[in-house]
């Protein structure tokens, strides 16, 4: 591959990174906290490409890569077309419940039980699905007990009953795990009528001590209201 094409691809990778950062598409692939680093990376790559391009134009074709002992080594640079196409044109969707990924399982053992920090004040504070699972299993302070909370997630079918799911991502989509809680109570039927993978905001209280199996708990949320919503900006918890 010629030096000009390498520079073009370098520029395109930088532009693709900037595009997924600006449009928010990056939250489908990595944690939202990576945003400033993505801008920085895009800046570095674009500057590197422009320095090389402008330098070449000014200096004529002085530095031809085929003459510095590389031979065919840079043919692999063509592969960089793949991420450019994936990030700019294909933009694969966020993970969906059908994806085969491991589940979050919150183990409840005496060793792990500890007091969790209290939930934020307010009528129904927002708690993420994985956080509900962990608190239900390991919180010795009982911060969820009798407390009305708001949980955002998507509907999932669970043998005729309805679950609330959300993917938990720690680094990137490759380490995603599916967190789910059961829905019950007056508003659960309403959620059950929605098609699978509908984003909803559910208000309710977690039933105390609702064990499902012996070591891993899937808590049940006694839902009092279910509101259909747009997919949130950060699709992963």
């Amino acid at each position, binding site marked *: 591959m*010629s*030096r*000009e*094409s*390498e520079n073009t691809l*370098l520029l*395109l990778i930088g532009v693709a990174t900037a595009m*997924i950062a600006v449009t928010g598409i990056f939250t*489908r*692939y990595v944690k939202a906290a*990576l945003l400033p*680093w*993505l801008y920085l990376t895009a800046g*570095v*790559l674009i500057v*590197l*490409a422009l320095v*090389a391009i402008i*330098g070449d134009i000014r*200096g004529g*074709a*002085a*530095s*031809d890569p085929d*003459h*510095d*002992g590389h031979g065919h*080594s*840079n043919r*692999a640079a063509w*592969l960089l*077309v793949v*991420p*450019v*196409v*994936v990030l700019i*044109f*294909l933009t*694969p*969707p966020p*993970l*969906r419940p059908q*994806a*085969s990924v*491991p*589940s*979050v*399982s919150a183990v409840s053992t005496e*060793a792990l039980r*500890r007091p969790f920090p209290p939930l934020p004040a307010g009528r129904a504070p927002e708690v993420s699905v994985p956080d509900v699972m962990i608190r239900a299993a390991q919180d010795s302070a009982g911060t969820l007990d009798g407390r009305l909370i708001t949980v955002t997630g998507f509907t999932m079918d669970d043998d005729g009953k309805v679950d609330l799911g959300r993917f938990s991502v*720690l*680094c*990137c*989509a*490759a*380490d*995603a*795990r599916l967190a789910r809680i059961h829905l019950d109570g007056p508003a659960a039927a309403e959620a059950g009528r929605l098609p699978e993978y509908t984003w909803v905001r559910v208000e309710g209280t977690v039933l105390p001590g609702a064990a499902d199996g012996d*070591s*891993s708990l899937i808590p049940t949320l006694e839902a009092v209201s279910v509101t259909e919503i747009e997919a949130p900006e950060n699709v992963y918890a």
Partner: protein
Amino acid sequence: MAAVNPEADSHTDPRRIRTLSVWVIAALMVAFALLGGTLRSVVYDSTALSTAGTVFAGIFVQALPFLALGVVLSALLAVFVTPDRLSRWLPNRPSAAVLTAAASGAALPGCECGSVPLARRMFGEGALGAAALTFMLAAPAINPIVVVSTVVAFPGQPQMVGARVGASLLTAIIMGLAWAKWGRPEWITRRLPKPAANDTPRWRAFAETARHDFLAAASYLVIGAAAAAALHVLVPQWVFEKLAGQLLLGVLVMAILAVVLALCSEGDAFVAASLTMLPLVPRLVFLVVGPAIDIKLFAMQAGIFGRAFAIRFAPATFVVATVVATVVGVLVLGGGA
């Protein structure tokens, strides 16, 4: 790359050939822009394709900032620190140099993608080569970010953190010493570009080095990320669940999964923590093998050091990391639960 080469234009009309591939890229972009909608819906309609696409994009995008950090550091190293100076800083005895390099791995915050190009720049004759490889293996596993995320992922189990750091350091040191003893410089077939001519300004030399290292590492990252994404979709979930209680089989499968899944070393602790059906030892193996060698690192090593190097160094790292992690795990964590 900045090598100013006056004979460069002596070929017959090289400019036409060179602009041709730019036109190919431009044509590809236009074609994908036109087909984008159709392709997007094909991907969206297939769960396997969209999961693979998302995982690929996840690994690639996650690695980019670390790769950028790595190539910026390696370019700074190339411009400001000559190999002579680096070897003057390091102890002369290979064993002492390897130990120093292993300890300094704690100073590079980031995951494994950045450390491969950096190690290539540090690489040199004798003790320096062993030290660079030790640094490459140690840095992703024992830096502060990884240690903290392991502490958070395994609350109340500090022995897991200690075992991870200890086994990773030991793996890096063993591989460094092994290179000092058996490694052959001729396996490193990929040559670095000639250093910039003396009259090139430093910032220009810096930009050229960073550009070269990024292109080399990123193109092989594409192969690794694509392979990992494909295997993500193809390795069925029950593999994880059928392994409870079988120590040796569990160790082997987790070691292979660490290679196949190619997770970022900053996040792999959480994945290991979530596999609660497995005993701690196989999960430790997962955490020690993954940052040292996985499918994307193998591809990047082949691209940056050379294939002859990667096909020897990667399997050796895999075996050493698996054995060391198992032994450390059994000693520190106990054999079974």
